[in-house]
């Protein structure tokens, strides 16, 4: 099941590490310090990159949810679960870096800005995904339920964003997250760190899918062992 031939993983990991080194260099040495916010602004590059990874994860989860319901192939469920795991971690990072940035810049850990609100609700939805996963025993049933949860969560996101923005359009927003003036070196730094995080996402997803698939196989083997009568086992050894 698990291919033994030429594992591309070391290459992928090396590339990701190099990209990260480049990103750190670009962010801290290539891009100039922002005039008003100063050094704090550096967190923005990683913040946005985390958001990208979260977005990639949840899109993947939704697509694999649809694919599972159509094909009933459990490999899609494994992909979906891996994607949501990674997405949840990176949504947490988005929220954390956002707060670290917001405290000095907006003078508040938290504001009900559309983007923040959307990320927070997204976090709740996909945390609920794991609560649901843990609550269902039957393999296929769990996969179908989780697929529905991932799809529902994904289609909920635009509505959350829209409603959060409507909320704000009545009380005008004072601070906008995208009000950053982008100097060309800053843009370079941003793009490099986006690429680094996207590569990291690829590596993590690959790993998690493999680990989850192996866990699945172990569980199946355990099941078979349980069912196999003791006599036959004794005869074998």
């Amino acid at each position, binding site marked *: 099941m698990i291919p033994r031939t030429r594992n591309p993983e070391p290459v992928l990991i090396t590339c990701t590490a190099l990209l990260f080194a480049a990103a750190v260099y670009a962010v801290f040495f290539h891009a100039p310090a922002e005039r008003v916010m100063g050094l704090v602004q550096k967190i923005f590059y990683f913040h946005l990159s985390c958001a990208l990874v979260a977005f990639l994860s949840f899109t993947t989860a939704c697509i694999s949810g649809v694919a599972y319901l159509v094909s*009933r192939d459990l490999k899609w469920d494994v992909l979906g679960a891996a994607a949501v795991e990674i997405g949840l971690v990176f949504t947490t990072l988005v929220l954390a870096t956002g707060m670290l940035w917001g405290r000095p810049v907006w003078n508040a850990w938290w504001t009900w800005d559309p983007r923040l609100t959307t990320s927070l609700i997204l976090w709740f939805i996909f945390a609920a995904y794991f609560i649901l996963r843990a609550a269902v025993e039957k*393999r*296929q049933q769990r996969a179908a339920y989780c697929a529905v949860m991932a799809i529902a969560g994904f289609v909920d996101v635009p509505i959350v964003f829209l409603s959060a923005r409507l909320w704000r359009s009545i009380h005008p927003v004072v601070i906008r997250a995208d009000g950053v003036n982008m100097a060309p070196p800053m843009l370079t730094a941003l793009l490099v760190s986006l690429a680094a995080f996207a590569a990291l996402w690829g590596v993590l997803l690959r790993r998690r899918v493999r680990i989850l698939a192996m866990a699945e196989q172990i*569980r*199946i*083997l355990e*099941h*078979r062992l349980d*069912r196999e*009568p003791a*006599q*036959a086992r004794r005869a074998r050894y």
Partner: protein
Amino acid sequence: MAADDYLEVSGLCKEYEGCRALRDLSFRLARGDFLTLFGPNGAGKSTLLRIIATLTAPDSGRVRVDGADLEDGSEEFRKRLGFISHHALLYDQMSALENLVFSASLYGVADPGARAEELLAQVDLQLHRHRLAGTFSRGMRQRLSIARALVNDPDLLLLDEPFTGLDRQAALLLGELLLVLKERRRTIIMVTHDLDRGLAMASRVGILAGGRLAFLEPRHRIDAAAFAGLYLATINGETS
């Protein structure tokens, strides 16, 4: 497909938790056949019935009834399907009559009230028609449950260990009703452990083991004693 084939099961596979409940299972039944399926626990008997009843989707393979694939138009098919298992499928908060009228209406029976009364008479519960099903004794519930399953006068009847746990009266009643249905050329598949009852009523007899049909013969070619031996051998073969 022969002209008189009513049910055609071909290449059915289903996997649960890595155990293959059904492996490439195929067989055919003509209209009016009464197939009794024996087999050790976990042989895939219930899975097969659930797939035919459209409760579970197979991983691969298909079921055709009366020339139509179950995938499309399974709602139409279920109108003619009956299923008896150990679950009562009754609403405790509704009276015996209401339970039957509700089911009859769901199946689109022409006059649900009359059909319900007719069934209540058949299972000898007319006197209790207005009692809530939840207050019934076990035997009465079983009879009501049998009536419920036959509310649409099914063309295809699936029975999953129907005699297990039945009290004497209910078992007698079910036996009689099955004989009547058999005479009226209904197609019946019964899964059971009960050798005597299973062989007595069947027109064909099968043994399901390890997700495959290990044996399928017309009843008249089988000697009961020899079959009992074969059946025991299959069960023992599975467990050693």
